[in-house]
């Protein structure tokens, strides 16, 4: 049965009225949602940027495969083909001994020009894995090939970076979940008070045959309003905070390997997430108390 417009208007009116009637409890719940979503917003902003930075760093993770000195041109070419065909390898760049030395001179100074007389360096391949987290595994495979002298990939450091990022992600998620539960609990408590305060009214509604959804909807709406009200300040704070931060950080990172996310579409995503979470905890919070105290 479709709901009548007048009924819907009545539900809206009722839900707004009880927000005001339980002023302080509403304020407490909305504040809890605000604090929660503020933290969620900041976390999401940090997390998404860390992910971006991690991606940037990950894509910079490469291994260097040194070729045996004894290998001739043909076997070097064979090794290159073999590496290219290794599963999980995305990119192979060949570097001659002279190129290697030039690089070293650039990195460590003109003194090394002495070695141009007799270059002690090896030919090398710069290899990138398609999934950077698989770098170690790919490196072990390549290490087994004939004419591979050594594979170097910043062993240890890369794993530590990944571990740190994963830990950060999980810790943030746990904290956010704990906060969400707190906010939901507070909302459901506020609605419980509404329900108790209107016990007589609800009792009469049920006696004269109001349908269950008719009894239930104003409370669910009330929860939704609290969720939405609680999401306003966090959304504004995150949007303006991030715009300010971006204005500050972006020029300083220009040309660097690490970049932060541009405000669009990133901020729209964050706004969507905060709004959705607000509505969601509102609905869930109200459902918990409606189910428990209304017995509809």
């Amino acid at each position, binding site marked *: 049965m479709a709901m*009548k417009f007048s*009924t819907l208007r009545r539900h809206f009116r009722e839900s707004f009225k009880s927000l005001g009637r339980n002023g302080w409890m509403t304020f407490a719940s909305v504040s809890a949602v605000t604090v929660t979503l503020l933290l969620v917003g900041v976390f999401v902003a940090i997390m998404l940027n860390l992910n971006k930075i991690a991606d940037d760093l990950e894509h910079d993770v490469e291994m260097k495969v040194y070729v045996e000195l004894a290998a001739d041109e043909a076997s070097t070419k064979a090794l290159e083909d073999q590496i290219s065909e290794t599963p999980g390898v995305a990119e192979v760049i060949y570097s001659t001994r002279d190129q290697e030395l030039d690089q070293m001179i650039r990195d460590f100074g003109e003194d090394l020009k002495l070695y141009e007389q007799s270059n002690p360096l090896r030919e090398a391949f710069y290899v990138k894995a398609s999934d950077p987290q698989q770098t170690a595994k790919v490196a072990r495979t390549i290490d087994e090939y004939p004419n591979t002298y050594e594979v170097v990939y910043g062993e240890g450091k890369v794993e530590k970076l990944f571990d740190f990022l994963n830990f950060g992600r999980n810790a943030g998620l746990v904290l956010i979940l704990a906060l969400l539960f707190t906010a939901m609990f507070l909302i459901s408590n506020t609605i419980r008070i509404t329900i108790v305060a209107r016990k007589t009214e609800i*009792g009469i*509604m*049920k*006696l*004269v*045959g109001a349908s*269950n959804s*008719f009894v239930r909807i104003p409370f669910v709406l009330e929860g939704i309003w609290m969720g939405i009200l609680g999401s306003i300040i966090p959304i504004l704070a995150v949007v303006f905070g991030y715009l300010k931060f971006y204005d500050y950080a972006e020029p300083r990172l220009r040309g660097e390997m690490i970049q932060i996310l541009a405000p669009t579409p990133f901020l729209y995503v964050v706004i969507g997430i905060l709004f959705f979470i607000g509505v969601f905890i509102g609905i869930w919070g109200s459902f918990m108390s409606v189910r428990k105290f209304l017995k509809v």
Partner: protein
Amino acid sequence: MIKMKDVYKKYANGVVAANGLNVSISPGEFVYVVGPSGAGKSTFIKMMYREEKPTSGEIYVDGTNLATLKNREVPYIRRKIGVVFQDFKLLPKLTVFENVAFAMEVIEAPADTIRDRVTEVLDLVGLKSKSRMLPTELSGGEQQRVSIARSIVNRPKVVIADEPTGNLDPETSWGIMNVFRDINEQLGTTIVMATHNKDIVNRIRHRVIAIEGGLIVRDEAEGAYGYEI
């Protein structure tokens, strides 16, 4: 209209409030339910409007078995039953008119139907002139009239009244009984009334069902109260 078959009710605390009730109430009947406190009178009444569910047995109201009725179907059977309480259960912040209209609003009746119908029933219970007053501005008898108006506003087939005169002085109680008589005679509504009021039962004779220990111990047409208070 109402039919009970071997109705048995045992509460979670072990109290047996109905121990095999069999009764049949025809459409348009006026029935008193009497008996000492704690004898199962209240449970008998509450099971009729599905406030309590029997542990076993069948209860038919207008052809629907309340014992097997699903929770979500309860609202629709409630619309066929009006309930009146000893303590009126009016909403203090709403006017007389709004209190009666409330019962129609929550079942989503159209606004103009509500207006006409509420005026009609307030006239019937003799409160047309006080429709804009708040319950607190009325006497106990008048408040009970409002609650009776509310119980019949959706044209129920049965009105169940649980001690409707329990809080009222004798003079006022007679007035309330006249309202019930009018509803019963003019509208043909079935009335089931639990009461401790000996004078009323003995003076306005109707069928009397006496309940003791969860059993119907007496069921007489034109019966007397039969208990000394």
